[in-house]
Structures are given as C-alpha cells and as structure tokens.
C-alpha cells in the first residue's frame, strides 16, 4: 500500500512475493514522470529499483517478509530508500540466486550483477547493512 507521508514523500510497503518489485517500479515511473524525468532515466530508475527489491527478497531473510520503499521527491532529483529488516549482507560476500553450470566466460558471469547494475544506473548509491536490516539509498539526479 502506498502512503503519502508528506508533500514530497511516498511510502510503499511490498511483500516479498514474486513480481512485487514491479509494483515498486511502476510507482517510481509515475513519480519520475511527474517530475519530468526522461523516458530513459525512468527506465534506469525502474531497473535499479527492481534490483534493489530483488536483493532484499533473496538475501535479507527478513522475518516480516516485507520491503519498505520511500520515494523522496527533491528539487534536484528523486531519492529512494529501500529497506528490509533482515540479517544484513556484505556486498563483498553476496551470492546470487539460481546457480547453474559454471560460467563459460568469467567476464560474462551469471551471478552477482545486481549491485553493479544499481551503481551503473543511479547517480549515487549508499548501502547500510547490519544485524537490523539493510537500507539501500539511491538518487537519480535531475540533470539534463
């Protein structure tokens, strides 16, 4: 359920269920469009948000099985805080989902791309993780 917590912030809580990351991405699209982000920027935001949610779904082991997303509309851009109350994780120690055959080409590996994609698509990314959960803060700037 999305809640407006002030004139410039929206809060969304999603359950850790398949495709719920799309709900977060769609709300981001609506907000970013209202702020006149370009189509390409909106897609970048959506992909980064999807990867952040999937990261929480797969690694947090959160007992409440929920992810809370705060959308903060700033004058200079759009900020997101994606939080879970799980066990935390180390970016250096992350593993990823489905495993299959070993990679044929190490540079085209099949695992561990989520955070790199987020960093590549957003203008700033900060990850705070501890025993009370993880929060990924990321900003898309309104630059031309």
């Amino acid at each position, binding site marked *: 359920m999305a809640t407006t917590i002030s004139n410039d912030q929206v809060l969304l809580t999603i359950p850790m269920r398949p*495709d719920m990351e799309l709900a977060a991405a*769609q709300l981001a699209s609506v907000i970013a469009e209202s702020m006149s982000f370009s189509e390409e920027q909106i*897609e970048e935001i959506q992909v980064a948000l999807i990867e952040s949610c999937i990261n929480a779904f797969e690694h947090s082991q959160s007992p409440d099985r929920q992810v809370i997303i705060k959308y903060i509309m700033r004058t200079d851009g759009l900020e997101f805080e994606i939080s879970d109350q799980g066990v935390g994780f180390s970016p250096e120690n992350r593993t990823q989902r489905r495993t299959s055959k070993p990679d044929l*080409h190490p540079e*085209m590996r099949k695992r561990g791309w989520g955070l790199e994609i987020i960093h590549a*698509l957003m203008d700033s990314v900060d990850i705070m993780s501890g025993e009370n959960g993880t929060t990924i803060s990321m900003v898309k700037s309104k630059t031309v």
Partner: protein
Amino acid sequence: MANKLDIQIRAERQYAVLETAGYLNDALGEKLSKKALELIEKGYTQLVINLDKTALINSIGISILIEIIEALEEREGTLNFCGLSATQERTFRMMAIAKYAGIFPDEKTAIANF
C-alpha cells in the same frame, strides 16, 4: 501492473526468432530458455531473441539469457539480440554479453548478420 508473459517463435530453415513479451524475470526467462533449448536440440544454431516487447529485464532474466548464449556456443552457434532499449543495451554491454552475442536494432538486421 499486469505482467503478461509470452513467447512467439518464428522458425525458418536457417534460423529461428524468439520474441518475448512482458517482464523478463525468472518466470519468463525459464520459458524462454526451454523454448531456445528445444530449438537448439532440433539443430538450430542461429537464434534471434527479439526483446522489443519486453520493457523491463532483471538480472535473473539476464543470467538465463547468458545460459542460452553458452548453450549455443557449445554447438558453435550464434545468438543475436534485437529490440533492446538504450538501458538494456548499456546493461548488456556492461555484462560483456555484447562480446559473445550480437546486438542489433531490429529483427531484419539481426537475421542479416548471422
């Protein structure tokens, strides 16, 4: 947001095109992988994956695409992508997919470049 998953296949003598529609996640990725592996088993070694109707792809979906590239490599085959958005193409290049598969703007060009 409705996520209608679909895969259309157009198999010709020399090549086959798989066109996806919907969010390319693990669910659609697994369906796509199954179809692609069936085509490879039938002897197709030149495949096009048309992503024009897939607006969003997640990293799990991409990992499945890499498996298809690897399966084709084992048969000395080729995979060409087309219909990617600018963001998708950027992500594919970052993940080195562009080194092992072709990326083309449209289906006609992807087919012409086998």
